[in-house]
């Protein structure tokens, strides 16, 4: 089942600008900000270890997908990239995650400003019970953009980037909760984009959506990858194959394999990866 889906991958779409995926292994793209490098990163919930020595390069201007069976630590690692997981009582970590060479766990780095640079979209869309406009404007407002016209501009631009503008431009002042699930999820993406982040983390962003809404999100990610680093957790291997440039396979808290998506799905190096993508477990 997994082998023929690779053929429908994003490299077939004609509109794509030439991309320099030179190596099949992910390497930092030094021309752009938003390169992530984890070095022997381990994570514990109290006494329970959830991640073991994860080392991975997540290049800027590309989509990297995390796949793996439930409970293998995908979300834990994703949420470690914006230090959200560290807020859980009893959580601790060792090793480093570097964003453009700076360890995000160093004492001098303020997690609040980190989260302005690393946006996040959750599995279950979570707009505030406010207007569409106020949802998107929230990030710029708390991060110090005061001018109204500037915020107007950011709101429009972010909604356009999230491919939602045409659907909501006449109802910006209405509650975000009146939108459909797929629209609300794209609103959450717009809200994250309004901060102009370098990195966008998405934790199973389409797993609760119908196929059409899912397709819209996937197209959106495809558009956005030329602008920022995208990391997406997904249970859906077709989705990983469709949207991602690189795929990382996690198993039992370890990073088993990371590779160019086409390579990983056609010629996995590890037996466990092959077992997973051919559906023999997980």
């Amino acid at each position: 089942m997994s082998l023929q889906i690779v053929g429908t991958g994003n490299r077939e779409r004609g509109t794509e600008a030439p991309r320099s995926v030179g190596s099949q292994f992910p390497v930092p793209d030094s021309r752009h900000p938003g390169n992530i490098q984890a070095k022997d990163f381990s994570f514990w919930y109290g006494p329970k270890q959830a991640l073991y020595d994860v080392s991975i390069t997540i290049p800027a201007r590309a989509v990297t997908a995390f796949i793996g069976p439930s409970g293998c630590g995908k979300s834990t690692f994703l949420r470690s990239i914006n230090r959200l997981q560290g807020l859980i009582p009893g959580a601790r970590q060792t090793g480093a995650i570097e964003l453009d060479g700076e360890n995000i766990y160093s004492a001098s780095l303020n997690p609040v400003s980190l989260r302005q640079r690393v946006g996040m979209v959750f599995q279950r869309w979570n707009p505030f019970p406010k207007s569409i406009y106020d949802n998107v404007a929230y990030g710029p407002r708390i991060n110090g953009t005061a001018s109204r016209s500037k915020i107007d501009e950011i709101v429009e631009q972010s909604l356009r980037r999230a491919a939602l503008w045409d659907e909501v431009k006449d109802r910006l002042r209405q509650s975000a909760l009146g939108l459909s699930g797929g629209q609300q999820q794209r609103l959450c993406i717009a809200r994250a984009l309004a901060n102009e982040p370098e990195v966008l983390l998405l934790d199973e962003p389409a797993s609760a959506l119908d196929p059409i809404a899912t397709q819209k999100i996937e197209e959106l990610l495809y558009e956005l990858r030329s602008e920022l680093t995208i990391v997406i957790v997904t249970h859906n291997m077709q989705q990983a194959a469709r949207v991602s440039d690189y795929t990382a396979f996690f198993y039992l808290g370890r990073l088993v394999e990371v590779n160019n998506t086409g390579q990983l799905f056609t010629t996995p190096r590890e037996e466990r990866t092959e077992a997973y993508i051919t559906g023999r477990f997980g």
Partner: protein
Amino acid sequence: MVSEAARPVVTTRPDDTGLGARIDGSAIGDSIYRWMTTAFALGIPILLLFIAIEIGAAAWPALKAFGFGFLTSSDWDPPHNIFGAAPAIYGTIVSSFIALLIATPLALGVAIFLSEFAPSWLRQPVAFLVDLLAAIPSVVYGLWGIFVLQPLLRDHVMPLLSAIPLLGQTPLFEGPAYGPSMLSAGLILAIMVLPFISAVSREVLMAVPRSQREAALALGATKWEMISDAVVPYARSGIIGGIILGLGRALGETMAVTMLIGNVHKISASLLAPGYTMASLIANEFAEATGDLHLSALMAVGAVLFVVTLIVNGLARWLVWRVSREGQS
């Protein structure tokens, strides 16, 4: 075949012979249950109606004798059969207002501390102690007010209030400080309603979904921004519900207020001056009321208290409805 198709539940379990009987039995149970709950549900409004009619009938002579003046006049002179309830109405509203003004920020502070900041070992004990405030009998509050709160207010707080530039010069803090006053009644009420507001607020704050908190944090909100922009607004209508609950308590509270407010039939702008409340008036005079009109006047005060409570609750409920709708519209 037709009957089988009509009862697919039975056909899927052909060997379960008790099933048909069980369905019939539960249908009877259902209807008994429905009638009983309907009767109880109807019973409450009917009871309320009877109370209203009863009070209204008893209050009628006084209301007829004094008309609208009963609400606006400050003369309360039982020997001459002259009754006007304005000071008591004013006192009830003002003392409750003071109570909410003081209790709401405190209770919210306690609730936010407990739900957001307190380490878990501290949360339970502090919550328990605050809840315990609600269990103290009202007369004990009154005694504490007379022996501790009032001397403290009279000797230290009231002179200080009068000495504040500008604010001290306003009619609000005018006149000598005796002790029994609108301020001390309002304060004791504040302490008494605080546990209600804080308990409800704490519950609704803790019920705010983690996804809302994470949404704010992930956008670069500080903890304070998360609380003020995501958590509190989400819990807003619940918090207002808690405030209404406190208000209901404050409006009807009798014993502690009677012991502290001074029981004087006079409207004073100054919070340092004594006053009266409707509940205190009834409690103080009911036993000694001999004249028919006096009794009727007290019943009329009860009727007004009833109506004021209804109006205030209605207003507050409308507010909750407005506020909770705001998020959706």
